[in-house]
């Protein structure tokens, strides 16, 4: 497959803003649900779960960017990676805030006890904690300051967050584990593509390191 050539204007002024707005759609849906009483009998639980679902989905989408590039050489996809990763972070933080503020109503003692006591919440917290340094170092300036190699090493935490997110979801499900297993399978596939690509082809490694040097 050959690399797609999309004019810079389209990428910067049309496609990227569209992806940005599309990424806000789950939030718009949620706001619509609250304003129309459309979130069912237990809107607080629905909100927390919905935000958690989208945190995990955006994380997987962001993690898919590089493997898809490896498979297709659509290098322009790299332009969306940071934004998608930041959306994953934003939804994860909102998910956590929903748990703290709506579900537990800021009962800090209980929240702390739950984080320590319930393994699935501990693991969920770990996922959010992993994403914090990634969000903080997502700017071009931080890439430069850290140096490409170190930046890349740090950003492997995204996979730790992904694994933790899937386990967190798997553990909280009562009986129907199909959805978390699907996410787990996607994550495994993405990771396999990276490994396989790294071993056999050595093609098109993410260009952050080189870009950082040039900058």
């Amino acid at each position, binding site marked *: 497959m050959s690399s797609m050539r999309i004019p810079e204007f389209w990428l910067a002024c049309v496609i990227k803003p569209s992806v940005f707005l599309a990424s806000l759609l789950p939030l718009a849906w949620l706001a619509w649900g609250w304003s129309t009483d459309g979130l*069912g*009998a*237990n809107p*607080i*639980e629905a909100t927390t779960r919905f935000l958690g679902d989208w945190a995990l989905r955006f994380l997987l989408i962001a993690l898919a960017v590089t493997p898809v590039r490896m498979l297709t050489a659509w290098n322009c996809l790299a332009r969306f990676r940071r934004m998608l990763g930041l959306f994953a972070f934003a939804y994860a933080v909102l998910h956590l805030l929903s748990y703290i503020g709506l*579900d*537990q*109503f800021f*009962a800090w003692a*209980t929240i702390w*006890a*739950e984080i320590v006591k*319930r*393994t*699935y919440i501990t693991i969920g917290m770990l996922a959010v904690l992993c994403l914090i340094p990634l969000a903080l170092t997502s700017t071009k300036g931080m890439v430069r300051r850290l140096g490409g190699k170190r930046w890349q090493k740090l950003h492997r935490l995204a996979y730790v967050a992904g694994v933790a997110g899937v386990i967190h979801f798997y*553990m*909280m499900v*009562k*009986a*129907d*584990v199909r959805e978390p297993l699907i996410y787990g399978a996607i994550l495994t596939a993405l990771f396999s593509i990276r490994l396989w690509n790294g071993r056999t082809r050595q093609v098109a490694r993410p260009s952050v390191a080189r870009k950082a040097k040039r900058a």
Partner: protein
Amino acid sequence: MLIGKIAPGGVRNSEITPRSVYLNRRHFMQGTAGAIALAALPASAATNERKKLEGVVKTNFEVSPDESLTKYDSVTGYNNFYEFGFDKDDPKANAGNLRTRPWTVKVDGHVAKPGTVDIDDLIKPHRLEERVYRHRCVEAWSMVVPWVGIPLKDIVERFEPTSSAKYVAFQTLLDPEQMPAQKRSSINWPYVEGLRIDEAVNPLTLMVVGLYGEVLPNQNGAPLRLVAPWKYGFKGIKSIVGIRFVEQLPPTTWNLLQPREYGFYANVNPKVDHPRWSQATERRIGEFRRRDTLMFNGYAEQVASLYAGMDLAENY
């Protein structure tokens, strides 16, 4: 509804008009719209309609004044009934095709009078009571529901259990055609539950056939379900086809699935957590702030003596 109106002269229901014909005729008489709907969707649409129960007697089973009834739409739209899907809105969406008539309940085991009983014959001799109970799910949400039912004790006595009847085991319908999620193997169907005999004959324990003064909607466990309000909701087995009186503690579905998380007793207890979450508080559906969970769901006065001397952390 026929319930509460016993056919004169001991004529059996089955000898009069078949129930489906009778219902269809009623729908037809309710107007053209009903008739058209019936023509388009034969049996399925009919079962989703709301039907008032007659002869329901209000009892003084009430909750505290600061607790109000959970909205009908929540009671009938937010359900755990895994036979129809694992999401809370699945039962309402998928239970419309459940045929609740004709329906029989097989009663056997250690009883003097075993037999397979038609659901209407099972209900008919009894007075229907409306009881407002708290309903606490093991998932830490709760409702207040005006159930309509018959004390299980009254039903149990008709079959004359022998002294070997130490437990009562219940079974849900097994029919993957009507209960689509039974095609999945994540749970070992059919759903089974059980009570100790003294729990079964406790005055609180109810065999439910309705809610909000109406025939029990399919998604809530029509035509017959168990309600033991001091226990977590999963003990309230739905769409019951079998009642067996046994000597040994019977297997129960959630206990088989996750023995560490779901015990046989499943008594509501704020001090004994589910391994994955606290049971100290609960979200009352329709309310914003959590409420403190009450010991035995607020029914300690009626049931605490059943467990005197038992370690409730051990027997969860």
